[in-house]
């Protein structure tokens, strides 16, 4: 019988109307009675101690309620481990207002609480601090001798260190026929979602809190608050139904949450704390990195040696690490390899995952080095990738569950018109613009986290699902509704997926391109259990035609349960619930990765990006006129929202290559361009034509729905493709990002 499927259909976002009418409410937008406003004071020094705080003047301002600092904060949890969170790197987590020590510039050192926002902000300028300053180090380049491998911890599972060396790298590299050595530098980047980090805490008395928070993990932050403030976790409810962008910044609880909750408990009042844009640069960032590449091949272009050594920044209190040197050998076979990832502790806040952490940094260096090698070999850059194409993962020697990278290369090259490329640099003009073509490969993880979903059929025959995940703009609500609708043969209107609430069944934070596979699989598992329960109940009905029917002999469609062989014999879900005395039939189930089976495989998404740039001959300004990215990421649940994920991350690639960077002034140990006027991200005028292709990739091994995630893979290949196109246009190799016009004149 004909069952209408919604998976694979380009469904418009289901929350679209709420977002275009202003009805969608974000963390700072909940109106609660007698609300107090908190404003954070940040450290102007980089390292040292607070000797004295004078708050008398601030307290005398009418409307100021209190000023909280390490001197008068409430009693807090004793052990470091109680401050930890699901995404904490190994080390000692930062504890706001813990003591007088200053660990980094911009560290929160006080919270002013007042009856209105303007008064709190003004009073924050009337506090006098005395500091004792100490010498500090914030420059990565000057401190690489401090580099060391990261300590291992909980996070190591998601971010393994690079694999051990194979063969004899030094000998092979020394004797190689063709080789390229290069050093790549990347600056610091800040996530900068347009929504400011904010928390509204509703004080409900008796140790109970309802918290509207900007986060990518409701349960992560619920546990953080409960642990630190000694509350029962059931008394802490964290809600984040709408999140104005995260990009990784919401993977850990940020300090406005801590300060807002502390103030609410201390004052027994409702409190809101919103950071300003400058303060958005005072927590978490993509770390600057220095990458030393040594790649070699035989004269036919077959790789003989891969060397990738990374020095990346971390803080002096946590060992943040990201996968960088791990990637080249997952793509290209080579008998001799040498990989290192070293972290350099500096007096900064701990870096944090930012869209495609590690991958977007590493693939830039890897794919630019491959391009340089291709140029030396006089082999087309795409041809060099195909010469070294591997069906299996050379680094683990395991097969991929699926890998349609070849299709990505070929389809994107065809759409782009790669065959028209002139291999000669600085040889193609369009008016006074130098034109260049470049390409690069992308690879990213295909994660799945455990997740629990409650699924129920209610008395009106609707399917209600509950899960604690957020929807940070990725389309989670829409794709989960699609998956669930198909599982029970319902229309999208008959499915209500409820999320963004820590009270709902477990979800990890929304990161690593993992949620579609995580919550999606849990929905499939729960739906299967729910179908069984519905059939069992239907079989108990009077004269039921389903008495002896097995799961395989029935089908759910159009709000009814049918016999497969006699579609005319059916009972409606509504009637089954009516027979259940109107009580919803429900189930809660866990979806989890099939670890045992998957241990034999390597898991990854792949992409190929092709880019055309125009470089002004006189001014050096770069325009990405058009780009094509083909992605192999398993099944695409919703081609419309998935395409937006890819084109959005391609724009992140343009931004990384040409626009964004946070500049550190090492004399002061502080970032100097902490605003959106000087921290550049692309504007509409910077964006040319972007095409997205999803290569067909059937993956029956990876999980129940065959998905791999699309949140990050679109970014990974773009920076290198742009750099390579700039080389093709100008003949200049720029070994740093972002690339500025003055470097091309």
């Amino acid at each position, binding site marked *: 019988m004909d069952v209408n499927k919604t998976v694979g259909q380009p469904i418009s976002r289901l929350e679209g109307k709420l*977002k275009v009418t*202003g009805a969608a409410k974000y963390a*700072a937008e909940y109106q609660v009675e007698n609300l107090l406003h908190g404003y954070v004071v940040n450290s102007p020094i980089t390292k040292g101690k607070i000797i004295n705080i004078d708050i008398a003047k601030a307290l005398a301002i009418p409307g100021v309620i209190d000023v909280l600092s390490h001197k008068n904060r409430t009693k807090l949890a004793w052990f470091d481990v109680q401050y930890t969170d699901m995404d904490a790197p190994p080390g000692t987590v930062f504890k706001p207002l813990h003591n007088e020590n200053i660990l980094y510039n911009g560290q929160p050192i006080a919270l002013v609480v007042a009856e209105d926002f303007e008064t709190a902000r003004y009073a924050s300028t009337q506090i006098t601090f005395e500091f004792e300053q100490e010498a500090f180090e914030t420059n990565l380049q000057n401190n690489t001798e401090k580099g060391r491998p990261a300590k291992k911890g909980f996070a190591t599972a998601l971010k393994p260190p690079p694999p051990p060396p194979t063969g004899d790298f030094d000998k092979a590299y020394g004797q190689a026929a063709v080789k390229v050595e290069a050093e790549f530098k990347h600056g610091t980047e800040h996530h900068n979602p*347009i929504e400011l980090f904010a928390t509204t805490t509703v004080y409900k008395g008796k140790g109970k809190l309802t918290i509207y928070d900007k986060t990518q993990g409701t349960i992560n932050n619920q546990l953080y608050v409960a642990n630190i403030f000694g509350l029962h976790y059931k008394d802490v409810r964290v809600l984040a139904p709408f999140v104005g*962008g995260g990009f990784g910044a919401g993977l850990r609880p940020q300090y406005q949450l801590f300060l807002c909750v502390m103030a609410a408990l201390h004052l027994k009042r409702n409190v809101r704390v919103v950071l300003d*844009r400058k303060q958005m640069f005072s927590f978490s960032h993509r770390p600057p990195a220095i990458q030393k590449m040594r790649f070699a091949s035989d004269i036919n272009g077959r790789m003989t040696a891969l060397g990738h050594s990374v020095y990346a920044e971390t803080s002096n209190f946590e060992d943040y690490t990201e996968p960088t040197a791990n990637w080249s050998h997952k793509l290209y076979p080579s008998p001799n390899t040498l990989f290192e990832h070293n972290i350099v502790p500096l007096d900064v806040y701990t870096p944090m995952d930012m869209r495609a952490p590690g991958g977007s940094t590493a693939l830039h260096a890897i794919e630019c080095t491959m391009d340089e090698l291709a140029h030396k070999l006089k082999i087309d850059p795409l041809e060099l990738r195909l010469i070294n194409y591997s069906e299996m993962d050379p680094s683990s020697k395991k097969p991929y569950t699926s890998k349609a990278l070849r299709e990505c290369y070929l389809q994107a090259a065809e759409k782009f018109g790669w065959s028209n490329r002139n291999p000669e640099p600085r040889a193609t003009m369009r008016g006074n613009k130098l034109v260049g073509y470049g390409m690069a490969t992308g690879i990213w993880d295909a994660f799945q986290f455990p997740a629990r979903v409650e699924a129920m059929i209610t008395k009106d025959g609707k399917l209600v699902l509950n899960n604690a995940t957020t929807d940070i703009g990725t389309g989670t609500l829409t794709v989960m509704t699609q998956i669930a609708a198909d599982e029970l043969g319902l229309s999208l209107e008959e499915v209500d997926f409820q999320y963004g609430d820590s009270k709902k069944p477990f979800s990890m934070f929304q990161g690593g391109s993992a949620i579609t596979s995580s919550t999606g699989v849990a929905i499939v598992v729960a739906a299967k259990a729910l179908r069984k329960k519905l059939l069992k109940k239907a079989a108990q009905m009077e004269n039921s035609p389903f008495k002896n029917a097995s799961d395989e002999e029935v089908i759910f469609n159009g709000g009814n349960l049918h016999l497969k062989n006699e579609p005319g014999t059916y009972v409606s879900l509504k009637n089954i619930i009516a027979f259940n005395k109107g009580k919803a039939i429900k189930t809660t189930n866990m979806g989890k990765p099939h670890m045992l089976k998957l241990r034999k495989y390597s898991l990854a998404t792949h992409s190929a990006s092709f880019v055309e740039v125009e470089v002004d001959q006189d001014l050096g300004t770069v325009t990405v006129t058009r780009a094509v990215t083909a992605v192999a990421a398993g099944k695409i649940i919703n081609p419309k929202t998935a395409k*937006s994920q890819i084109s959005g991350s*391609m724009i992140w690639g343009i931004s990384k290559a040409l626009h964004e960077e946070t500049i550190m002034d090492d004399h002061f140990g502080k970032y100097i361009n902490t605003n*959106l006027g000087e921290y550049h*991200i692309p504007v509409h005028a910077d964006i040319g034509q972007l095409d997205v292709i999803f290569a067909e990739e059937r993956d029956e091994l990876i999980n129940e729905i065959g998905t791999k995630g699309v949140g990050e893979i679109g970014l990974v290949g773009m920076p290198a493709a742009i750099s390579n196109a700039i080389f093709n246009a100008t003949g200049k190799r720029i070994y740093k990002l972002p690339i500025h016009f003055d470097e091309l004149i």
Partner: protein
Amino acid sequence: MKRTETQTPSHLQQGTCAVNIKVNGEEKTLYVQPWVSLLDGLRDHLNLTGTKKGCDHGQCGACTIICDDKRILSCLTLAVMKNGSEITTVEGIAHGEELHPIQQAFIDHDAFQCGYCTPGQLCSAIGLIKEGKANSREEVKELMSGNLCRCGANIGIIDAIMQVKDGGNNE
């Protein structure tokens, strides 16, 4: 016409100004201190949180509203400057349940992801179309460049505006 009046915290009674504005067709009186921005006036005093705060100093465009037929940045405007003005925010674009064509085009073109810059993009787009200066796609891109989108929904946004600008015949 219904008139809404806002409450002022007791410590701020002195020096408070009465600001009469018409917002989305309704007469409102705001009692605010002279340093309260129009953005905070709308969000915190009138509970019109559809207008967004992304930077609070004129760099991101999330707070764009339509004031006396022009698109303006409400974060760079003090509420007291707009006494007697007529304001349309994202909450006032639709006609009841019927979406404005630009709102529908944003949904159709997937012109947003997280949705936070969207109200500013929508108001800016309506202002841009009314100005009548932008003819080509390139001009629309240029004149919409004061509205940042971090999710990278730029292409959908410009596609949606081009469709509405040309009366739905463009795409």
